[in-house]
């Protein structure tokens, strides 16, 4: 265990994206070299530069232990908390020969240096999801009696520190700034998953019917990677979908539910997605005849330019559109047996960071490094319709 404490200080060069709104100048880069032990954080490097060289470097920070959520930045282009990123890791992920590049987060306007306007984007979106408990009535005299596992389950989203790292690099939000987004939807799950909340259906229906709601997520995993607290925002969005569809039979005007159903059926039948069938089935009904339904025709017609472009670029062939991909019979059987196993379960099986599911995990073969972000640990083991996206 001593390894982390024995290494001497080294030189690290940080390259900061600076912006002074009062100067009239464009943003610029500013480099400083600091002396710190390699397991110290990028925040400590910034603070050393601020304390010793230039007090005007702007960054929000307080706790230095990844709990206050103030110091969200991009390090070498990737969103994270400055206090939660080790210098040695940042140096080795540098795209500039070891120089650590630090920029403000994306998707939010910059106020000064590394400080962004979270009110304008992040907090506005949080307010969109009715972010308070709508408690079941009557309120009991003592506590609500609820399932132990349910409370542990919502702790994962409660653990969100509102740092904005997931918002910073949400690809869907980049294309559609109105998308409610990963942080706010994770916050929504905190209520949807809370057995004391009285409005589970209303919340889900609202978020499913909103064209910028749960079906606007493109399933890119960026937020899962970005989150310093393993909240797994995308996983929470998928859970919102699953609860909406499986528990409440919500069929949304955005075609999200139909799209997922079509996707799942195509993979089940063919072992692989049959792309050409996806759109007509999503709109016209989940069978081969779907394409003859008027809404599918309308949708196909409006997608014609995209279809032609895809044909021209060779992404789709006429034969491929007419026939599904074929995979060996054994493989198809294997895929279908996954469906049988998952759909055959009595209850939907959801894993959560705080619920390990076993009493004693075997010890890892080698001591895990200090920087592991636990991404693999948070992967959701899900039952139905995982893998669909729009």
């Amino acid at each position, binding site marked *: *265990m001593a*390894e*982390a*404490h*024995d290494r001497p200080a080294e030189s690290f060069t940080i390259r900061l994206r600076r912006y*002074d*709104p*009062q100067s009239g100048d464009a943003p610029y880069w500013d480099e400083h070299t600091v002396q710190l*032990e390699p397991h110290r954080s990028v925040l400590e490097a910034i603070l050393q530069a*601020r*304390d*010793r060289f230039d*007090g*005007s470097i702007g960054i*929000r*920070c*307080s*706790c*230095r*232990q*990844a*709990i*206050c*959520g*103030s110091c969200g930045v991009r390090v070498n282009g990737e969103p994270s908390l400055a206090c939660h990123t080790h210098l040695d890791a940042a140096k080795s992920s540098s795209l500039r020969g070891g120089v650590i590049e630090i920029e403000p987060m994306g998707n939010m306007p910059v*106020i*000064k*240096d590394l400080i962004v306007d979270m009110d304008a984007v992040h907090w506005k979106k949080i307010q969109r999801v009715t*972010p*308070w*408990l709508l*408690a079941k009535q009557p*309120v009991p005299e*003592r*506590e*609500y*009696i609820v*399932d*132990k596992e349910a*409370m*542990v389950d919502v*702790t994962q989203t*409660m*653990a*969100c520190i*509102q740092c904005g790292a997931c918002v910073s690099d949400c690809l869907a939000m980049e294309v559609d700034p109105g998308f409610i987004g990963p942080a706010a939807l994770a916050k929504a799950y905190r209520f949807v998953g*809370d057995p*004391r909340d009285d409005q589970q259906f209303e919340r889900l229906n609202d978020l499913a019917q909103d064209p910028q709601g749960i079906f606007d997520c493109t399933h890119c995993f960026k937020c899962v990677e970005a989150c310093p*607290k393993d909240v797994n925002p995308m996983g929470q969005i998928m859970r919102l979908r699953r609860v909406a569809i499986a528990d409440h039979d919500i069929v949304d005007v955005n075609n999200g539910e139909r799209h997922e159903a079509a996707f799942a059926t195509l993979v089940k039948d063919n072992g692989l997605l049959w792309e050409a069938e996806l759109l007509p089935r999503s709109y016209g009904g989940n069978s081969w005849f779907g394409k003859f339904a008027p809404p599918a025709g309308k949708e196909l017609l409006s997608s014609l330019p995209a279809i032609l472009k895809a044909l021209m670029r060779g992404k789709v062939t006429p034969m491929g559109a007419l026939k599904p991909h074929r995979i060996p019979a054994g493989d198809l059987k294997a895929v279908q047996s996954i469906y049988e196993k998952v759909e055959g379960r009595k209850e939907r099986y959801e894993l959560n960071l*705080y619920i*390990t599911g076993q*009493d*004693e*995990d075997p010890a890892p073969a080698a*001591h*895990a490094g*200090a*920087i*592991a972000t*636990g991404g693999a640990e948070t992967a959701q083991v899900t039952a139905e319709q995982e893998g669909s996206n729009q």
Partner: protein
Amino acid sequence: MPQHDVLIIGAGLAGQRAALAAAQNGASVAIMSKVHPVRSHSVAAAGGINAAISVDDDWHSHAYDTVKGSDFLGDQDAIEVMCSEAPAEVMHLEHIGVTFHRNEKGEMDLRAFGGASMKRTAYVADITGQAMLHVLYEQLMKHHETVERYEEWFTTSLLLDEEGRCAGAIARDVRSGHMEAFTAKNVILACGGAGQCYKPTTNGLIVTGDGIAMAYRAGAPLMDMEMVQYHPTCLVETGILITEGARGEGAHLLNANGERFMEKSAPNKMELASRDVVSRAEQTEINEGRGVGPGGAGIFLDVTVVPRKRTLEALREIVNLGRDFAGVDITREPIMIRPGQHYIMGGVKTDVDGRTPIEGLYAAGEVACVSVHGGNRLGANSLLDTLIFGRRAGEHAADRAASIGPPKLDTAAHLRNDMQRIDEIISRPHDGRRVSEIKSELGEEMNRHAAVYRDEEGLQEALQTIERLREQAAGAWIDDRGTVFNQDVLGALELGFLIDCAQATVLAALERKESRGAQFRTDYPERNDEQWLKHIDVTLHGEQPKVSYSPVTITQWQPEERKY
């Protein structure tokens, strides 16, 4: 000019609770914080909140534990208020949405904590403070029509009217640099402690004693300032806190010989003795050469004795902290810790309704000293303190607002004065020292001489150092000349607050010639109830601090020898 019935400065747990209570009682409320409310340092409270909610518990037992934990310096009337109201307050929090962890029956689960005679700490994994703070902020968003929020506004001073009543505050919008006078019938200070007087500290960089110093400058007495809590389990290098919940779940403390040394000083409670006792025992092991790690400066905290599943479920945050900040998997190997500055029991003197001796000025939470913690705060009593006295202050201030007219005062001169003060700092020439250098020296000096063990010589040295730093701070320079997010100039103002708090701490520590709670004087190693069973107050008269005493309120528990 914004005008409110109740202006709350600070938006951590105490401030947000006060705001909600005042609004519920019909007051027009503004809550102001130099950071976004969820960044407040309450967020870092990990372990839980104490309340006698179990059917076989009794709030009298909680109160006795708190009195004993305080080394009999706590005011027992205030402790009775806090402990008797705790169960209802915790239930209220549960009802508004805090996701307290449950037992198998679906009731709120309770964990063991230091200095408690039974399990009475409700918790949300080890992010209890964060969960509570975020849930209160949910409520602020819900009640946005009745509570006006001024987020990222830095308060520079309190306003007093001609009769000496508190009537508002001057504040600066951090985003624009715009300064404004806020008048209010009542002001509630809820802006936390002064941990940044120390280096290292578990406290966030924002915890700079702003409220304590502003009240002190306005003439309010500070009480119990000598009582500075060192938390027994902080990471050796960075001072980052490892929750007491770890020991609550069964973790051991080991010295270099692998011995559970707590046997010597607390044979019954072992690792779950009160924090002052554990920190002193650790420091003794380190001082006597039985420490671990480089320079023998640490102690091992062994969490591997806790079942791994339980650790991952209930101590998730410290699994992450160990991994990310010390490179240790705490479920597999012990982690090196040491005592570190964590909390100040002292603060602005208040009664049980949060009232300070200045009319119209209230204080609640770590900024205040009721005194419920006396010489040593029990773990998981600070969250309780913030909520109970935050609520009571909010309610009382709302009631008072209903019975008086709006304050009458001319704010222009005050506003101009604070604007000039800031302009003067910005225009200082670059000779002398940087603000950051002075702050760093102050922290190291306090950690050297006003720590777990203290003596006359060291404290006198600290006092002189503080005087010198005060003079240097008056000319200390900064780089930032802008108005948008000029954190540099705010740092200079914070340094001034810290120096006031540090001076009051050292003066009180020098005054108390005995050992009680967190104050251990190697030159006066015994507790001396005959002479020192009293509070020490520090009040500013003109420029000069004056020390005086006030009695300890004893209701049902006479002082006795403290054994764990």
